[in-house]
């Protein structure tokens, strides 16, 4: 009887040891290392990761699509710590994360790339060509709002809602309230977890304005409006792959070309369409990605 429980404990510890030791997949492929891709923790990023992953996989690359997790901070840290090889991020966000005081025209995508490229390069990662697909910051109000531009909100005494990160960013809350930019005085602020809760809060009248993303499909469906960024505060938010330089080199120029080709094909409308499918039609990102790739004839290789 003592043996039974002893054996149970031993088995438990042994299993734990095996699990800790295991986990890493063997890269048995002769051509290059496994390319690990991880999306961030919201549908669009997950779908994008699936699109890039399935695309590369169809082209014969050894790909592992990891469980989505975290946001930009975690994604960049994972790239630095060699826990992921390829991320696809929004360049405006990258700019505020890596070079917040660069003093460049944040609406100029090329200028952003010129700024963040060397920062990543120094840390062993390469920023590839950005896509025409844009998912920008959106200052969203209910359809019945009197405001047309963000400037108009200054007179309305709105309650403002956004995710925690927005409140400390010059291109977000700080910019809206900065007298030198929009100078809005909100009557109150609420921190809301990023995602559909923003729309729920807006619809319920808990807040009058939220910062969302331009490709959020609920904006149209729920009858909200995106106000014009008349002061040009929001940076350019094209998507762009950022890849470990070592992995890129190991696979040769073919990988760079393949990724650039794919990026060029994705449009803002595609992002919106994907988000509608995942968040409104409640379909799975991997299925959505596969159908899009099939439609574009990208899986036929």
């Amino acid at each position, binding site marked *: *009887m003592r043996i*039974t*429980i002893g054996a149970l404990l031993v088995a438990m510890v042994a299993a734990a040891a095996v699990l800790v030791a295991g986990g890493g997949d063997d890269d048995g492929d002769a051509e290059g290392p496994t390319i690990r891709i991880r999306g961030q923790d919201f549908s669009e990023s997950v779908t994008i990761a699936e699109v890039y992953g399935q695309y590369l996989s169809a082209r014969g690359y050894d790909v592992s699509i990891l469980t989505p997790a975290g946001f930009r901070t975690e994604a960049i840290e994972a790239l630095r710590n060699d826990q992921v090889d390829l991320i696809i991020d929004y360049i405006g966000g990258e700019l505020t994360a890596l070079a917040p005081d660069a003093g460049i025209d944040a609406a100029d995508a090329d200028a952003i790339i010129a700024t963040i490229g060397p920062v990543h390069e120094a840390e062993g990662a390469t920023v590839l060509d950005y896509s025409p697909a844009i998912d920008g910051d959106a200052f969203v109000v209910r359809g019945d709002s009197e405001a047309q531009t963000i400037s108009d909100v200054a007179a309305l005494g709105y309650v403002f809602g956004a995710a925690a990160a927005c409140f400390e960013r010059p291109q977000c809350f700080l910019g809206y309230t900065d007298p030198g930019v929009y100078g809005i005085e909100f009557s109150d602020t609420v921190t809301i977890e990023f995602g559909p809760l923003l729309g729920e809060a807006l619809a319920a009248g808990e807040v009058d304005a939220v910062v969302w993303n331009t490709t959020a499909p609920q904006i149209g469906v729920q009858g909200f409006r995106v106000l014009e960024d008349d002061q040009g505060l929001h940076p350019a938010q094209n998507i762009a792959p950022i890849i470990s330089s070592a992995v890129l080199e190991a696979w040769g120029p073919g990988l760079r070309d393949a990724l650039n080709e794919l990026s060029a094909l994705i449009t803002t409308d595609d992002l919106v369409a994907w988000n509608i499918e995942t968040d409104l039609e409640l379909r*799975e990102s991997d299925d959505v990605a596969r159908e899009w790739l099939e439609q574009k004839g990208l899986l036929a290789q």
Partner: protein
Amino acid sequence: MIPALQASNPIVRWSWFVDEWDQIQAALVQHLELTLLALGLGLLLSATLAAVALRYERGAPSITAGAAAFYTIPSVALFGLLVPYTGLSRATAVLPLAGYTLLILVTAIIDGFRSVPAEVREAASGMGMSSRRRLLTVELPLALPYVITGIRIATVSTVGLVTVAAIIGQGGLGRLILDGLRRTFWTPMTIGASLSILLALALDLLIYHAGAAATPWARRRRA
């Protein structure tokens, strides 16, 4: 008042359950792995701490107080703090989870060993048992009912806590919950939460029966 935002969004869409079985199964396995890892590590740490506490009586309150203090650190904060050091890795999930088991397990082990009647210890020594033999053949078996209860409580709460580790990409069933939250999609949320509860109950039952089989003499006491 709110327009139909989404495609039909029942509490559980069973077709999703079938279609996404691979994903669900993987999440379940990962959940189980994380739970066992955290418990295994927690048990090792607790046994060590409890041994110290039992040997140095005066240290016992500080050890349990330390475990209690650790228990009050919000898991979200702890995961967040570890990410810069251990990344979005399994270790980031397992270390805090193991830490949270300490309060329950250390207390259980200490209680278990303290429950061994002094006269039983004395009889064992009086018969010429070495302290090692006494520990293995007398004290450990007698402490088992307490330890097993501790493991049961720790298991159930760890299974629940693992869901939180989804925020760092290691959540098992928490992944499904988070996915549902992200899209206000009830099905994965419901399935994730239900399976997590079922897993907890199943493990609880399993350990209970394993414990009962390992301590037949406690049958009457257990009542």
